[in-house]
């Protein structure tokens, strides 16, 4: 393992709905907090990567942060936008080009399911026009088939959602902070069979910033540097089953999550058994279940027993989505992947308060998945 890049400062703007606060402002607030955490000024940052899908060009924030002339590059990469800003920051420091920089992600989406418009210019949008092109449909179809194939029950879907809201109730930056029982989750409106309203996360708002530095300089900024062991983003291969696909191949291949996970473990030189806490993409509760297996933490089908045994609770064998995940935080696409890393830094520093994973977790894992079939994984160690 190489210890060459460290996270030395973290900042978050609460997730949720914030009338009158632009997405970019939420990103700027997150940067100010991250700088404060690292005991530096904006002018100390040598470069930035900024990600946002729906809330403007991140580099425009220099006009309010300060015109210091730093290199500021914008990243847009679907649901892996935040993760891509992080991997770019990580690689820039690894390359030796700069010593300290920031990855920032923020977003502000309209209410309701993502509006996906795929029409070419001068053509009628047949895909969305016909009532397809909804990300929610993909998640419903994928988990519906998976449940039949591997014996996962609807009760397990409800358990995942209920855990998310319970964890969210212990997180002051979460959007949904009210615990919800399994029965309430099951009884809510059926949106995309077999998934009900409370099994889905909602597009939302929020911002996260992470200050990264060369590991050999990290102690200048913090007593508790957290080392980034690997950061990987993968797109899909031929034959995988992905969101927003008018057709799929007859052949079957693993999705980008499996590829990103394997590559991240290999780069870090460790395996799934070494992970103490994990944040996995939970666009809906079935996604968390499938991603437990796709990331190598169990075999397909074992999730049913793991959930019944409470293995993924905060005090369980493998705590998953300790901050409430996307279900309790919502999904501002540009910020979502960075929120997972923010949570893991808190957990590894021992600063997660009421939701702190016991026994000093040392190694932590994050995973994002989304349109159009892209996945990002990071592995952190204390």
């Amino acid at each position: 393992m190489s210890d060459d890049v460290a996270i030395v400062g973290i900042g978050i703007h609460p997730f949720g709905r914030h009338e009158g606060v632009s997405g970019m402002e939420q990103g700027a607030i997150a940067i100010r907090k991250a700088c404060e955490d690292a005991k530096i000024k904006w002018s100390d940052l040598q470069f930035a990567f900024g990600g946002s899908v729906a809330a403007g060009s991140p580099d425009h924030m220099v006009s309010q942060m300060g015109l210091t002339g730093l290199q500021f590059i914008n990243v847009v990469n679907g649901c892996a936008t935040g993760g891509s800003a992080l991997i770019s920051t990580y690689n820039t420091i690894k390359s030796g080009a700069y010593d300290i920089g920031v990855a920032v992600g923020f977003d502000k989406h309209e209410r309701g399911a993502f509006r996906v418009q795929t029409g070419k210019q001068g053509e009628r949008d047949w895909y969305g026009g016909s009532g397809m092109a909804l990300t929610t449909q993909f998640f419903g179809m994928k988990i519906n088939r998976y449940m039949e194939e591997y014996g996962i029950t609807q009760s397990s879907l409800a358990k995942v959602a209920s855990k998310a809201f319970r964890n969210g109730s212990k997180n002051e930056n979460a959007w949904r902070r009210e615990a919800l029982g399994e029965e309430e989750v099951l009884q809510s409106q059926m949106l995309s069979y077999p998934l009900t309203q409370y099994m889905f996360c909602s597009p939302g708002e929020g911002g996260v910033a992470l200050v990264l530095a060369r590991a050999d300089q990290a102690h200048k900024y913090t007593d508790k540097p957290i080392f980034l062991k690997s950061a990987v983003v993968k797109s899909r291969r031929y034959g995988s089953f992905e969101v927003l696909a008018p057709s799929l191949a007859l052949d079957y291949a693993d999705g980008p999550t499996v590829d990103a996970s394997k590559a991240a473990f290999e780069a870090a030189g460790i395996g799934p058994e070494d992970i103490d806490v994990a944040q996995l993409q939970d666009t809906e509760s079935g996604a968390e279940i499938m991603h437990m297996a796709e990331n190598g933490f169990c075999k397909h089908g074992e999730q049913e027993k793991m959930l019944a045994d409470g293995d993924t609770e905060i005090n369980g064998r493998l705590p998953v989505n300790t901050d409430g995940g996307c279900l309790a935080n919502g999904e501002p696409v540009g910020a979502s992947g960075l929120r997972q890393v923010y949570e893991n830094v808190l957990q590894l520093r021992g600063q997660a308060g009421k939701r702190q994973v016991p026994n000093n977790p040392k190694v932590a894992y994050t995973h994002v998945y989304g349109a159009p079939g892209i996945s990002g994984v990071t592995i952190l160690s204390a």
Partner: protein
Amino acid sequence: MGQVSINENVMDLTPDGPRLKGMRCNNCGNHVFPMQSGCPKCTSDDVEEVQLGTQGTLWAWTIQGFPPKAPPYLGEANPEKFEAYGVGYIELPGQLKVESRLTISDPSLLKIGMEMEIVPETIGMDEEGNELVTFAFAPSA
């Protein structure tokens, strides 16, 4: 006032029903819908347009339980009048799995592996008052 295809680049509307226009790769035989300029399997750009099959088996499904946003949706988006509809992937032998509306919206009537065939479905009206027709899959008669 008649019936027109929702988009003639992806679907012909014939007296026998909708016919989908896909891509076949002349190098490796792979299929994609709709037509595109290169093959994602073998990377060849030697591809041609072909008509896709009209019958297959249900591979995955869900029920759309809330009105999609309009735009882009051309169907009934008013929550008061909206009716749920099925969405699934149908495996067309030797070609691909195509995503489609389903005529069935009752979960108890949908089973992975069931035989299905393509049918026309009127989704809305165009600017000239023609019925806009898209494709759906129904249980084989």
